[in-house]
């Protein structure tokens, strides 16, 4: 779609390393092929420091004005809550699209991350979902309400947490109850 030069996956990684130095770690470029013609495609993974997260997203959006935000995933990693933001850049030209995934670790004691809705307004549902499922706080979210779980669901319980704030208390194992 864009007429600007497309960077290769190595160049993208390099531009991030130059810009954010030690704040970018665990870089992994996944190169796979498909079909008989062995057409290549790339998935880039990197761990981004929370202090530069917003800048990193801005940097990605600068590489391609049509950067697409797909969704953010997340999980409880013990001491931290890790969010994985899935982006893709360079769509509109055949076989040029590259998936870029940012993993951000938030300390459980203070799980706050900046909103990206000012860059990608379409990210709001995803941010709301992370708030209610994982108990993270999105700073600057334009609509601070629940989206998937209802308002009468306990306020301090988060379905995707694996600690005492998780949904374990709510689970009823009917087969075990029948045994008793």
């Amino acid at each position, binding site marked *: 779609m864009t007429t600007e030069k497309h960077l290769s996956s190595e160049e993208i990684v390099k531009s991030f390393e130059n810009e954010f130095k030690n704040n970018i770690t665990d870089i992994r470029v996944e190169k796979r092929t498909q079909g008989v013609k062995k057409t290549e495609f790339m998935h880039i993974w990197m761990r981004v420091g929370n202090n530069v997260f917003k800048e990193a997203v801005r940097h990605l959006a600068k590489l391609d004005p049509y950067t697409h935000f797909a969704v953010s995933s*997340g*999980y409880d990693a013990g001491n931290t809550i890790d969010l994985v933001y*899935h982006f893709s850049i360079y769509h509109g030209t055949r*076989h040029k699209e590259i*998936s870029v995934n940012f993993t951000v670790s938030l300390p459980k004691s203070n799980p706050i991350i900046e909103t990206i809705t000012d860059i990608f307004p*379409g990210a709001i549902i995803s941010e709301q979902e992370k708030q209610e499922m994982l108990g993270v706080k999105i700073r600057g979210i334009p609509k601070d309400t629940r989206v998937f779980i209802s308002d009468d669901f306990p306020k301090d319980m988060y379905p995707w947490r694996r600690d005492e704030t998780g949904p374990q208390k709510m689970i009823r194992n009917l087969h075990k109850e029948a045994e008793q």
Partner: protein
Amino acid sequence: MKQQITKTTYQLPIGPIHPALKEPVMFEFEIEGERIIDVNVALGHVHRGIEWAGMQRNPIQILYLAERICGICSYCHPMSFALAVERAAGIEVPERAQYLRVIQGELERICSHMLWAGVAAHEIGFDSVLFLTWQMREKGLDLTEYLTGNRVTKGITMIGGVRRDITNDMHPKIKEALQYFKDNFEKLRHIFLDDKTFKMRSQNCGVLTKEDALKLCAVGPTTRASGVKKDVRLDQGYFAYGDLDFDYVTPDVLTGEVHGDVYDRIIVRLLEVKQSIDLIEQCLNLMPSGEIISEPKIPKLLAILKKLNGEGIGRMEAPRGEVIHYVKFTGQDSPYSWKVRAPTYSNVLPWIPMLKGGQIADIPIVAASTDPCMSCTNRVAVVHNDKRYELDKEELHRMSIEKTRRLMT
């Protein structure tokens, strides 16, 4: 019906259960007379906690659970999950299986778009077209049953390949079904694109600009109808799509213009049906011989996956747009994390600019025009409603039909 003239706006909730919506979703409209001033969308009414349930199961069990996320995309979800697992585990899929995967995917697209065409016709009160399109879809379902053994939950996906081959003696029956689609395509095109009533109800209605589509991260036919060239099959490719000859479908391919209205969304879906027929034919001709699965012994595959440490994403172009699954393994029986992002998740926000400024009678067709699938989007559930005046469901459908009649006279 008595009409009261008032200058103030009033609120109109539609849903969560409503025949015009087909699945539970709740719209809160701010109405001034017949005009929609503002709209808010509430989700979550069919959230079944499937991702959480998946995190208690092993990857093979998840395939069958993922199949039940959605009754229409019962191939896309398990397949995206399989793609994510294959990437996390570094499993190479045999070439023949990649072609078989394309055939199943495109057949699902034909069935889904046909189903949508019927729903769209029904929403504007054109029920004879509903029966015509669903009759055609039936042929697609018959073919699905012939190829997979099932009509809806296909059970064809396996990590590392597919579960059933397509042998040479099956080709005549597939070709016959494709010929049937081709023979009837012109009739369908004529009804949807040339019919005066269809044009009146769909042109300049539910407009989504290209800027909004990009900004709100819309996907699939919804964004392509607004002129955005975004199709995972072409952008990044997966399966054997990289070997096949096809191009982005945007409405300007046919009309030379992009309006981003309901009519354009009809164009895109109809052309995609034609494209899917062509892709299946290409696959039948180009398909190499060989294995259909990388590891046929499931216990062996499971043993490998149980030791797996890693993460991956699987992206596919489902009939409604990009579907993406994220999966993370930490060497346990079940994945540590599983996230499902169905296309409707991204196509909910574009409803707002589409509906704003429209009329109440246009709600059903505009809401249907993105081909929403709420069961895909919601995966845990509770119904919440407040004390507001509710427009009777039959009434809304009646208003839509009345508008069609009014335009016709």
